[in-house]
């Protein structure tokens, strides 16, 4: 433990230098406040992590935005993810999971690009979300509707999940451990409007998904891991690999050579192999429960990135306790036949008793569902 603390504090020096360089032209802001476990503020702004400043939702000094190769689908919401660590501390690289220092705060703000008449927009493009000249960093409040900001705070004895819900006036997000529901009208590019319930999970539900070891129940971050983070990000100073940048600012130590790092595919990058895109999608959307230690190991279906047994991945696997979720189909995956495969049925369902994932969406992710159709359609063989 001592050695990483030392490395961390050395790296912290670098951090201070780098960040003071980029934030010199802004008004001074109070520093990020790390509240104790017994003094959680009711208002997000009190953390001084990300706040509305001059009409833009802006990360504070040392609060670093990041992105994932393939992210979890949440009803087409856009997400601004950030990481902050106390000065002088650093995460230690691990291929499966980093060891984040006590005091780390991860934030994820769910928002939509604003449409007319109170609608929100369904678009894959993030280009219009940001304040002028601040791509990848600050969200333009005139262009976005903020829904919720979830914090994960690393405590001595584990991670703490804190859901904050943004008010209608978009001036503040308030802690809501019981979660929330709001009715949204989502407008697609063609003008079609889907009306749906946007559901903010309660604190237990946060923990349910984030405990990828369900028995231990300890929760952990799902996105910020090497295989998801290993990609370029558009920082203010230019584009750079996220892991390299984290190392440079002292947020990450023990990083192996860049070309030896794991990296999952972007599910929407058509230049990449179908198999890699589908497995990346399944890993981030399903693998937190469908892994050998996860909540869904009761099903015998494993969709985590490292699974190699095709039957455990669902090929010709009969359901166990799928109930309504079987969709009157006999196997999780019937090669070549997405219309006969339970996996496709469940990701294409919005019935809470049948759909997968069970939480976090009220709409079908059409692009993701289409990818999984292509994946299953391309498989060879038969089940019987």
């Amino acid at each position, binding site marked *: 433990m001592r050695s990483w603390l030392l490395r961390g504090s050395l790296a912290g020096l670098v951090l201070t230098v780098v960040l003071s360089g980029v934030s010199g032209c802004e008004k001074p802001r109070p520093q990020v406040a790390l509240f104790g476990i017994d003094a959680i503020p009711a208002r997000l702004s009190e953390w001084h992590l990300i706040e509305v400043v001059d009409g833009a939702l802006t990360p504070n000094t040392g609060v670093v935005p990041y992105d994932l190769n393939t992210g979890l689908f949440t009803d087409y919401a856009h997400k601004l993810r950030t990481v902050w660590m106390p000065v002088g501390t650093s995460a230690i690289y691990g291929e499966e999971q980093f060891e984040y220092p006590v005091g780390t705060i991860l934030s994820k703000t769910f928002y939509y690009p604003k449409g007319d008449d109170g609608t929100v927009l369904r678009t894959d493009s993030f280009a219009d979300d940001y304040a002028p000249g601040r791509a990848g960093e600050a969200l333009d409040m005139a262009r976005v509707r903020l829904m919720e900001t979830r914090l994960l705070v690393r405590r001595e004895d584990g991670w703490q999940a804190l859901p904050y819900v943004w008010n209608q006036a978009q001036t503040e997000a308030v802690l809501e451990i019981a979660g929330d529901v709001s009715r949204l009208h989502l407008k697609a590019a063609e003008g079609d409007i889907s009306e749906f319930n946007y559901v903010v999970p309660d604190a237990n539900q946060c923990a349910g998904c984030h405990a990828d070891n369900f028995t231990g129940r300890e929760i952990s971050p799902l996105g910020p891991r090497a295989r998801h983070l290993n990609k370029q990000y558009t920082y203010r100073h230019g584009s750079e690999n996220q892991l390299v940048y984290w190392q440079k600012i002292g947020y990450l130590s023990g990083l192996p050579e860049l070309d030896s790092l794991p990296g999952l595919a972007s599910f929407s990058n058509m230049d990449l192999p179908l198999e890699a895109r589908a497995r990346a999608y399944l890993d981030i959307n399903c693998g937190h429960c469908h892994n050998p230690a996860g909540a869904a190991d009761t099903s015998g279906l494993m969709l985590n990135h490292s699974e190699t047994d095709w039957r455990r991945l669902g090929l010709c*696997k009969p359901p166990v306790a799928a109930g309504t979720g079987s969709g009157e189909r006999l196997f999780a995956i019937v090669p070549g036949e997405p219309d006969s495969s339970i996996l496709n049925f469940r990701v294409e369902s919005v019935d809470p008793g*049948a759909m997968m994932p069970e939480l976090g969406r009220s709409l079908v992710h059409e692009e993701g569902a289409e990818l999984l159709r292509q994946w299953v359609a391309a498989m060879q063989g038969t089940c019987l």
Partner: protein
Amino acid sequence: MKTLSRMGVILVMVFASACSQDDKTDRANVVDAAVDSDFQKQLLRQLISAKPGDVVQIPEGKFQLNRSLSLNIDGVTIRGAGMDKSILSFKNQIQGAEGLLVNASNFTIENLAIEDTIGDALKVNEGENIVIRNIRVEWTNGPATENGAYGIYPVQTKNTLVEGSVAIGASDAGIYVGQSRNVIVRNNRAEFNVAGIEIENTIGADVYGNEATNNTGGVLVFNMPNLPQPGHSTRIYNNKIFKNNTENFGHEGTPVAAVPAGSGVVINSNDNVEIFDNEIADNNTANIVVSSYFTAGYYSDKSTQKDFDPYPEGIYIYNNRFAGGGTSPDHLELKALKLTKFGLNGSLPDVLWDGVINPEKLINGKLPGDLRLCMDNGDAGIINVDFSNGYKNISTDIAPHKCHLNKLPQITLDFDQPETEQEEDDHLAVLEGTNA
């Protein structure tokens, strides 16, 4: 989780002072119209903020909820005022795959009802020392395919007691214990489910004092492939299992969808199962069905893990009181079988066996004694339909089944004290005996 629980208590207090200034007037008006929002929010907060030793009380009344509840703190009790007095109704549920999801040890839930959930009613996923007592889970519109799958559903648990409960209308199993160890299911009632009570991939279960009626199958003991734990050793005794003739309304593809309507007890691919001292009557296909995974129709080398054992072995059926049954079997093959073998007014014998045995285990053409299907029930008969050979050598010869097996040990749970009521019952039984 200690973290979250400690945090929760503080949060509830903090939140109370914050929300008055919050502008959220138009939030969720539509979806909350048919929901007791305040009650739901308060209950969610109580469950999230619970500390070990807490009792979360559910008051009398019928409360409409539209989101799943969950508990993941050890040592908590959820207690209502009675299964017909404290009712959590999920008729308008918009989120979550179950009514209440629990991942906790030393957990007790008692004296309340969970109705009309969109998925499972009560799921306990992992945990030790679980008590589920006097709970009613029900789909109030009666049996229907669109009902949720499981009523009371502990899975991957250790030391579990389900007692005094009622399960009605599940489109899979009313009471389903899966992949667990050391289980007692007693004095419950299961009605109008596809499977009344199901023990699956579980090691060591005692199922007694229950009533299973009007289900598609009354009591099921199954082993399914591709799961972390194969099961064995279940005792089914002193139950009343009758008239389980409800048409199968399970979802095609699910294991229970293959269960013929009119099945009293079904053993599938499970070993060391003892069925004794039950009243089993008027189940139209057969009072007891013993079958292998092959007859369920899903088996293929591709779909089944290599080390899966699909053969039911060490099945001991004795001292049961059979009546009626077998008069109108489900599934075409069985209808034809009954007609040709027993005539229009005849009936299948009390025990229907698919006759599939593991050829690799035969010694001189016979199964070793401890792997056999043994019967001792007065004049109750058996039919071996010889499934492996396409029903060629159908036999009703009871002689190969006149044998005895070693009895299984009783299941005990450390937290389970003998009830005085039971002692009184025994006392009464003795008195009645002397009067007679």
